[in-house]
């Protein structure tokens, strides 16, 4: 192939004939710059949105803590901002959130992890190609549907087994939330398990390990940080989940772990106030921003933690 300069040099032989190469430099630079700025603008939208949310949250939250001492908020065990005798101890809401999340995790983590192990280690390709899409359908169901499923289907079953079960209760919301989180838990764990190099499995088999020993002593430990990341993301998801708890878990902020009774979570409280007739610009209204900030901080910590773990397991095999 002949090498010829694509920029026309003055007085050079090639500049005398008309060039066969189109496009001016000015035009190219213009297109490149435009593309750059359009892309930047799109990326900026999400950054600005996040910043906007944080500023809104923080502004109202700071005002709230001007009236309620932050320590009282974080350590108080009575939450009655909507009553005549107002108490602003957020712990009952945290308690409710933790209770529901705990039930959800107890359902989602073991079932999800075992599903992931089955899919990646045991299932023949045919079975896998059926089970995986079904799991993904589970992930695509709107949470409001899950909420009514909890209320209309799971709660009656629970009441059949434990007659003292309240109509709105933590157990039913938690169990259904567990199934909602299950696909995420299974899918992230499966990715982590599949990321364990085949070499390691072979090495273990070559030492006379059985399939179960290869899985329990090499594959799962090797994927542990990824699996932990999945657990943390699941917890984070459970904490932030709103619709199921608003529908099925009730609106009674209280302490304790009576799972068959009604409790209120942080998210359910925010819904309650947002949809209610609470006056804006009052202390009652500002509570939702304080609770929202707390929720944001909690899930943010969870996400950072899982990010660190994922990074750790990525490094392990490079």
């Amino acid at each position, binding site marked *: 192939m002949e090498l010829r300069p694509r920029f026309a040099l003055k007085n050079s032989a090639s500049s005398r004939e008309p060039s066969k190469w189109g496009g001016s430099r000015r035009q190219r630079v213009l297109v490149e710059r435009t593309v750059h700025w359009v892309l930047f603008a799109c990326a900026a939208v999400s950054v600005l949105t996040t910043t906007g949310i944080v500023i809104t949250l923080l502004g109202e939250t700071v005002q709230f803590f001007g009236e309620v001492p932050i320590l009282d908020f974080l350590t108080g065990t009575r939450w009655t901002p909507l009553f005549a005798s107002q108490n602003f101890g957020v712990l009952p809401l945290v308690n409710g959130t933790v209770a529901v999340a705990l039930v959800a995790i107890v359902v989602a983590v073991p079932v999800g992890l075992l599903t992931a192990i089955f899919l990646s280690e045991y299932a023949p390709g045919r079975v896998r190609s059926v089970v995986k899409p079904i799991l993904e359908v589970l992930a695509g169901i709107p949470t409001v549907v899950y909420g009514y499923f909890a209320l209309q289907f799971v709660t009656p079953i629970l009441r059949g087994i434990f007659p003292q079960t309240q109509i709105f209760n933590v157990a039913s919301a938690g169990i259904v939330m567990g199934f909602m989180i299950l696909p995420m838990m299974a899918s992230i764990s499966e990715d982590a398990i599949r990321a364990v190099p085949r070499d390691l499995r072979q090495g273990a088999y070559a030492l006379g*390990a059985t399939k179960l020993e290869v899985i329990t002593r090499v594959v799962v430990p090797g994927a542990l940080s990824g699996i932990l990341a999945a657990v943390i993301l699941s917890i984070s998801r459970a904490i932030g989940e709103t619709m199921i708890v608003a529908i099925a878990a009730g609106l009674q902020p209280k302490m304790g772990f009576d799972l068959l009774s009604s409790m209120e979570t942080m998210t359910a409280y925010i819904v309650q106030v947002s949809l209610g007739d609470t006056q804006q610009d009052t202390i009652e209204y500002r509570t939702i921003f304080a609770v929202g900030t707390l929720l944001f901080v909690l899930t943010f910590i969870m996400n950072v933690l899982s990010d660190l773990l994922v990074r750790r397991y990525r490094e392990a095999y490079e």
Partner: protein
Amino acid sequence: MINLRVGDQAKDVANVDQRDGGAILATTHLSFWYAKFLAIEDVSIEMPDRKITAIIGPSGCGKSTFLRCFNRMNELIPGTRIEGDVMFRGTNVNDRSVDPVEIRRQVGMVFQKPNPFPKSIYDNVAYGPRVNRYQGSMDEIVETSLRRAALWDEVKDDLKKSGLALSGGQQQRLCIARALAVQPEVLLMDEPCSALDPIATTRIEDLMRELREDLSIVIVTHNMQQAARVSDRTAFFTLGEAGAGVLVEHDETQRIFTTPSDDRTEAYITGRFG
């Protein structure tokens, strides 16, 4: 170290009586298929006990597949089929009554790429004895294995360190130590030095010569100099007319490299193809 040598020799003497010095591994009319693809065709060979047998040949001629027949690693891949006999000490390893786990304990394997588990050095070596329910002292077997793999002096002070923190050559010796820990009679090595630098390669080769005292080694290698340097016998594989790997000839290494009986062998070792 001195104590250990005495111990090993004593063990050798005891083993010599049991071993007849004949073939430890053998195949007769062995063919192997990945689904419908015939990978190796009609291979018959005997490999003598306590020798190093090198398997050489161009890429894709089924050397690794052949090696993996001896510890039934191929059956972990779905859709494979085997025909003919693979014998280990007179037992057909593919016989229904043979437990693959038991075969793999006696026929160890070292892989092309060092593959230590993401565990401590100690746990890497102890893995095999643990899964095989070894009843004796774990510390002792870890130390002995690391010494046999010539790694002990480099790692004895941080056995808790991750196996992945070692250099490539050390990792490969760790994998050898790990394989030795279950006290196999045969060590299959699938291009064990292809990912290592020349110095690390030399160490592994020295190690192989020492290990030959107690066990039989079969090594697949792309490196003909390596085969010439370390092995007692050499088997030359190539692609047959049907596109499957075939065994061309096998003999004393010296003969293969000086006076091979087949033209294809000569062409390969003189670098005219492959």
